[in-house]
Structures are given as structure tokens and as C-alpha cells.
């Protein structure tokens, strides 16, 4: 079976077959062992040893922890990938992307307005938490749809602060893009 694994902005193709594993078109020897009763997996990939913590978050959605990083992976097999392409949902799922508050805090400043075109790294909203000001930046390119908060407002974790218009090219970026 061929899988398309989306991690951040990357989509990696992984083919699992009786003959072995192929990643991005390259054959590689892989062995995944489970530490029984735990989320720990010991992966040997081309002889290289990786310790990975896996957590299932939903159908095809996995959270992986390795080398100090928590990565979100969305795994689609080729059939689901084809169906999603046909229905125009894109890899990242439908709907406009949104900027969410990564923590509860106080909005100090909103740096964009509706209709603004933003580039990756551009500051969007400044939120104060732990007595530190944190500038939330655009992770990708896009156009601001709605601004849902104003300076002086307190926000909860994961509250939507800014919505973006759905990108025209759906295949380019995943939800983290």
C-alpha cells in the first residue's frame, strides 16, 4: 500500500509492500518494534536507530515524538488521497485556515486587518502571557479573511484569532503550512 504522509509543509510518499519499505522512491530496510504496553516504538531505518513515541489522535492522524520534537503526521493511503483530491478537499482538509491562540493570554496588538495579504513570518497578533509579549506570525502565505479579536481582549488557548481565506491551490500546503 502507498501512503502519503503530511508533516508540516512536507508530503512524504511511503510505500509498504511485502518486499519492504520505499520512502520517497528509495528502498530502505525498516523494522518497527513495539515496547509492549507503551507508546514507545523502536524504529530501525536503514540500520539507523530511532526512539519514537506514537499517539493516535484520530483516523490517519498521529502525533509522533522523536529527537526532541513533537510532529503531527496525517497519513492517507492512495485511495483516500485520490478521493480527497477529487472532492477538492486537499491534504489539509477543507475550510479556511486560522490563527489560533497557542496559550491563554491578553491581546496586546493586532497587526493585520481584513483583506491584508500576508507573507510567511509576518507578525499577525501580539499576545501577552507569562508577562512576556509573544508575536504570533504567519506560517504561510495568504489573505486575511476575518479578524476576530481586538487589543485588550483576553483569549483562551486554541481560540481563533484570525481567519484566512481558503488558498486557491489546495495541494500545496497541509494544515500546519
Amino acid at each position, binding site marked *: 500500500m502507498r501512503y502519503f504522509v503530511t508533516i508540516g509543509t512536507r508530503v*512524504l510518499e511511503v510505500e509498504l509492500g511485502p518486499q519492504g519499505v520505499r*520512502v520517497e522512491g528509495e528502498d530502505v530496510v525498516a523494522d518497527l518494534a513495539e515496547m509492549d504496553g507503551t507508546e514507545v516504538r523502536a524504529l530501525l531505518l536503514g540500520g539507523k536507530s530511532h526512539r519514537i513515541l506514537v499517539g493516535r489522535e484520530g483516523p*490517519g492522524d498521529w502525533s509522533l515524538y*522523536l529527537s526532541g520534537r*513533537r510532529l503531527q503526521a496525517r497519513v492517507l493511503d492512495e485511495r483516500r488521497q485520490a478521493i480527497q483530491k477529487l472532492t477538492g478537499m486537499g491534504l489539509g482538509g477543507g475550510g479556511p485556515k486560522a490563527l489560533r491562540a497557542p496559550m491563554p493570554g491578553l491581546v496586546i496588538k493586532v497587526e493585520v486587518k481584513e483583506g491584508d495579504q500576508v507573507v510567511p513570518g509576518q507578525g499577525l497578533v501580539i499576545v501577552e502571557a507569562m508577562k512576556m509579549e*509573544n508575536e*504570533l506570525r504567519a506560517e504561510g502565505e495568504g489573505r486575511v479573511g476575518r479578524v476576530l479579536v481586538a487589543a485588550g481582549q483576553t483569549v483562551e488557548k486554541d481560540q481563533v484569532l484570525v481567519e484566512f481565506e481558503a488558498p486557491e491551490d489546495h495541494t500545496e500546503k497541509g494544515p500546519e503550512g
Partner: protein
Amino acid sequence: MFESVLVANRGEIAVRVIRACREMGIRSIAIFSEADRRALHVLEADEAYCVGPPPSSESYLRWDRILEVARGAGADAIHPGYGFLAERAHFSKAVQEAGLVFVGPSPETIAAMGDKTEARRRMQRAGVPIVPGTTDPLADPQGAGELAREIGFPVLLKASAGGGGKGMRVVEKPGDITRAFEAASREAQAAFGDGSLYLERFLDAPRHIEIQVMGDQFGNVLHFGERECSIQRRHQKLIEEAPSPVITPELRKAMGAAAVRAAEAVSYLGAGTVEFLFKDGEFFFLEMNTRLQVEHPVTELVYGIDLVELQFRVAAGEALTLEQDSLRALGHAVECRITAEDPYRGFLPSTGRIDYLRLPAGPGVRWDGGIISGFEVGLNYDPLLGKLIVHAPSRTAALRRMVRALDEMVIRGVETCVPFHRRVMDEEDFQRGSVSIRYLEDHPDLMDGEEDESILRAAAVAAALVEEEEQGRLRLDLAPQDGRVGFSAWRLGGRAFMGRR
């Protein structure tokens, strides 16, 4: 020695102090806020008492309640740790007035060093070098030019009323000073309504190097060499080491003597740190921290001492018996501060429950931490989770050891700055010891969030295998399909491995 000590702090430093208490046979008394009922320092202490709701202002800073707990629990002394009440002269005074011992300097010393301009003046009088310049307003560009030639270019013109970089100019050579003076003065006039300027030597990308001192009640002051703390973000230190790769034995002696003079000038008692800016072999007083530092373990490892134990001893009235000339740094120690911050999102604080914790171990590795599995990392306090410290015979060996220890560490549930430290250990300027307080600005690629290709591939393969396993299990309940019923993906991978052997 004290029978019991109240530790007026939380997190890793409270645990550190409690550990020293236990080793010295002192009853340890912890305090905690309602958010910290399950915190490690509460679990490790002999006794623990709640002092209020989560916000620090209603708990860890409530010195009245803390004193009440100390009296009720029969504490002999209070150790303030760092932060919170550690450098509040009124707290030190209140502890004394309650008939208890404050583990730290006198209220007068704390107050004198807390006022930064007053501290500068005192240090100048004590013969401690400060950044050359004047704090009096300059009359005109000619006067500025003369003074600049005297102290040496480049110089920095600063608005007397200043702040925020307005009315500030770096002047590289004598010919530029008139124009720079006029521009800076106009800017200062416009920004603050006061165009007066003063001038000091401009230090371009200096290092931050500090000296550990310890004083007793008999006027003895010792120093324990330097710590290199140049790797900082917004004045927050991230990586510290001892000794500094650029300090020669002669410089160490000179800086140590200056730090001892600084401490003697304020009749210093207990552990303190004199911070210097260092550039091209010269050092200048920055400020003195009248408490234990976060990064004290690197000094402990190379000098083979326990600074918290020494704090307790001098606070209890014992004399320092160590001889300055017999103190030698042995090997090299490095510390990485492990914080709940995401280095790939501008060090944004990260919150969550720590659901998996594996701490590094093995030769030369020390973990001073304040976390435990199941602990909820919130936003009420500092994001420091703990400090990973290594000790080895040489700097090269210490850096390799740190890489090994960082790779062993697993903290899941919050994002941490571990990947940042891992990248710094591989970075060439850092490896050469060529660093300054501008290190992060000079190396933005350390925070660019690009995942390593081999990591991405490993993650993708693992995700595909566990997904296949998941679907394989589901298929067991359905009709056979493709003749692959029950094949779990990881065994399938294992077969490939076996086949190759």
C-alpha cells in the same frame, strides 16, 4: 547548623535546595501555590504548606504568609532561591525581624546592589572597572570629540533622558562625531524634549562573563572563577559553561580580584555573582546578583563544591575555611536550560501535561529539574523545567557529552528548547568558543524550524507503519482483502530486515 529551613520558592531551584537540606540532615519545609500541589518540590520536601492561589503575587510573593508558615512550622532559616523574593531587601529585613535567618546578604547589601546607578558609583569607588565614559551631559560636539579620543573609538552617544534606542548613535571615528552628535541631539530633543547627551565606550558584541563569589560573617570573600553566559535570548541566558574558553589564568585572577573587591565594598555575605561585559581582553562591571544563580551547577562541578551547602554554612555563622590559592577549576562543565518554549516559534511558551519523561543519565551527567510525569506546565510561572549539566575533562569532551545527554532526553507533553540546544552543540562558532551576547541574532538559522530530512523520513515511515497496523487490525474483523489479513506492519518491516540478513 540549622535544624530546619523553609524554602521560599518552587520548581527546580526549590528541589535543588531541598536536596542540600536532606543531605545535611536539615528538615526541609516547602511552600506551594494551589497550582503546585503536585509539583516535585512538594513531593521531595519533608513538609509542605499551601500559601495561596496560583498567581505569584498571591502565593510565592506573599512574604507575610510565608513568614507565618515559617513560624508555624518552626523554621530556623529561610532560603529564597532565585527570583521571587530573593532580591527584595524588605523581605530579607522582615525575616531578620521575625527572628529567623535569611540565607543571603543583608537588606542593606541587597538594596545597594539593586539600585543599578548607585551600584555603578560604588563599584567605581571600589576600583572595579566600569564601561568608560561619562554620566554627565556633554556641552557640545567638540567636548564629545575630546572625551571620545580619551576613552577610544568606537563610542556610543546616548540621550540622557533616553531609552528605546532613540537619540543613540555609534560613532566609529573622530571625523563622524559632530554630525552624529547633532543628529542624536535633535532626535533626543524630539523624543524626550531634552537634547542632552552623554557618551561611553561602545562595546560591539561583548561576552557576558560572571564571577561566583562567597562571603562569610568574618569578612572573608572567596571567588570560584568565571562562568561564560554569552548565549542569551532577550537577556535570558540559555547556555552557560565554566571555565570560559577565552579567560586565561591571569584574566581569571584579575576578574576574580575585582569581583572580590566588589563584594567587599558592600560587606557581602553568602553566595553572589558579579557580572561583567568582556571584550578584547577588557572587562567591565555590569551588575551584581545578590543570590544563587540559575547556572551555579557548572561552578560546582568544576570546583567540586556545593554552593547551597556553603550558603547554609556561612548563614549559620561558620567561617569559610577554603584557601583562595588552593581553588582550581577541574575539567569543563556546560549547562543547557531546558525550558517549555518552542524554539521554532520564537520561543513561544508551551503548556501542557508532561505525559512521558525520560531523563539522561550515565557518566558526567547531572539533571537539576523541577518536573515529574503527570505534572501540568501552566503559564503562571517561569518556563524553566530544569537544567541539564555535564562535566568532562575537556570542553570538546563536554560538548560531546551534552550531545549524548540531549539525545537521551525525552520530555513529551510540552514543546521544549531541546532541539535548539542540540543544534547549537553542532554549530561551528559555538564549538570554537567564538560567541557573544549577539550569538542568537547572528545565527537565525538555529531557529528556522526546518526538520532534518532523516528525522522526517523516520517519522513518515513510523506513521505509515502504525497506520497500516491500525488498518490491519481493523481488517481482521472484515472480509479478507488482498490476502494480507493479520499482517501487522511492523512485523512486515521486520521480515524485510530478516530477509536481508
